[in-house]
């Protein structure tokens, strides 16, 4: 697969379309599955891993002849990739950070639209993932359920009637499902209500993480809400649990935005304009600062405070200014300080005047 080509596009999750896409960035469902006749990864020998990898690669790649996956599914040997390429796949959310940093035989099967990714030899033998732009858990579930059925027809999954799908970690056993929705919540952060929101989500056993799984002060005000429990509730019930809370969060965020517009429009407008100004003129800028400022700009575009910029362009800047993307686009390896200079130059090129249109896929 040509990662260089991939680097130029936005990928599915930052496409910036789909229902409620001003606040909901993407909907994602993951399933953890294991083969019945091999030990879990932590206990697998190198030859087990090679064998698991070989079997699963062959079975999953063959799916391109079946049903909705007609077209190409592409296998990427993650072990053989350069570090920058592994990080690149993490930035695009096609593999987990753990998968990038692990040792031993491992890979990922990706569809060119980047909606489907199947990690092989991660913590479990298989981690299926389907991602949709905007709020669309129903479509994500339909697709991943079908993918799971297709794979299941070709292998025997580790499953028992009592505990369901058996996983390496008991926190995933049962359905093996992780349903998550990524939201952009800058106004709740500015009005300092975000912690209150987290606490109430934790009470109903939903987890909150940042964009790349980090702690409570998430980069760029992106937050992922996901289910914590996987056993004792059906897939539909678990999806509903997440789906039910999202409209409430969207409503809170909208109320917070209304409040800011009503009570302190000048302050808000000033914040947005300054952020835009810095991004258009900076000569060196870190990834964190970029994310922070782009977050204000993104909200500014959604609230009509910035009129010469579109959301897909802003989304593209979010991903293209990440360290590995920046290096892929520049075509050279860069250290931190060179990256900060290149990032600033990239932002100036794309935010001033002759801006190339964002790739809408």
């Amino acid at each position, binding site marked *: 697969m040509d990662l260089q080509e991939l680097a130029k596009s936005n990928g599915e999750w930052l496409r910036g379309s789909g229902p409620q896409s001003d606040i909901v960035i993407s909907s994602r469902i993951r399933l953890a599955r294991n083969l019945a006749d091999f030990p879990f990864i932590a206990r697998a020998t190198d030859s087990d891993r090679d064998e698991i990898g070989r079997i699963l690669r062959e079975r999953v790649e063959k799916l391109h002849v079946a049903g909705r996956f007609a077209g190409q599914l592409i296998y990427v040997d993650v072990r053989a990739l350069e570090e920058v390429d592994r990080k690149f796949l993490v930035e695009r959310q096609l593999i987990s950070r753990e998968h990038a940093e692990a040792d031993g035989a491992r890979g990922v099967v990706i569809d060119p639209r980047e909606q489907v990714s199947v990690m092989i030899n991660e913590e479990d033998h298989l981690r299926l993932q389907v991602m949709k732009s905007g709020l669309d858990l129903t479509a994500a579930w339909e697709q991943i359920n079908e993918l799971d059925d297709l794979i299941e027809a070709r292998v025997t999954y580790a499953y028992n009637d009592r505990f369901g799908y058996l996983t390496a970690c008991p926190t995933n056993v*049962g359905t093996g499902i992780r349903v998550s929705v990524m939201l952009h919540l800058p106004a709740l952060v500015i009005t300092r209500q975000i912690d209150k929101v987290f606490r109430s989500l934790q009470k109903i056993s939903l987890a909150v993480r940042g964009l790349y799984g980090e702690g409570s002060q998430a980069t760029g005000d992106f937050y992922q809400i996901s289910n914590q429990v*996987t056993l004792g*509730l*059906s897939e539909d019930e678990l999806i509903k649990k997440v789906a039910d809370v999202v409209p409430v969060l969207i409503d809170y965020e909208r109320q917070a935005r209304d409040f800011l517009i009503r009570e302190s429009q000048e302050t808000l407008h000033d914040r947005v304009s300054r952020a835009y100004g810095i991004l258009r003129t900076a000569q060196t800028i870190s990834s964190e600062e970029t994310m922070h400022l782009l977050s204000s700009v993104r909200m500014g575009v959604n609230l009509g405070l910035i009129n010469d910029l579109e959301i897909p362009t802003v989304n593209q800047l979010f991903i293209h200014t990440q360290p590995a993307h920046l290096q892929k686009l520049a075509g050279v390896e860069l250290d931190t300080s060179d990256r900060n200079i290149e990032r600033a130059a990239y932002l100036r090129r794309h935010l001033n005047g002759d801006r190339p249109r964002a790739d809408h896929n």
Partner: protein
Amino acid sequence: MKCQKCDKPATFHITDLVDGKPNELHLCEDCAHKFLAPAVDEASESLPAMAGLLAQHLAVGETAEELARLDECTCPVCGITFLEFRKQGRLGCPHDYVCFANELEPLLLNIHGETRHVGKVPKRCASNAEQQTQLIRLRRQMKEAVTAEDYERASSLRDEIRTIESAREIKT
């Protein structure tokens, strides 16, 4: 007054109790915010939390002897001991859910609030789960035989594995 943690003006004056003694803190809004709502360390979430949960759960109603005996329980299929699982927070093979079922149940109740699966069932269930786990055991034994340079045993184990594998290939 300046914030004790940075140079901004202190607007929050907090009295915190440390070991029963009052401790005066003067912080700016940002630092007070951080102090009052400390960031959750997400990275440490899965492993130590799991180990902690296990330790917590096992500490209740288990004597040291019982715990020691439990820790020595070994899965006959993959060879993992319960102690190894407690340390790593990761199980060794699907059969662990059978052989450690009674130990896992209270842990699962703690994590999920439930102990029985509800939801999707694979259409093609492992008709013979024993045969599946047998393969895991045989491969492990073969590797051990090779390490011990017992090639005769290794070769008979390899034949056994191939027989099961090819019988399965025909079925699928």
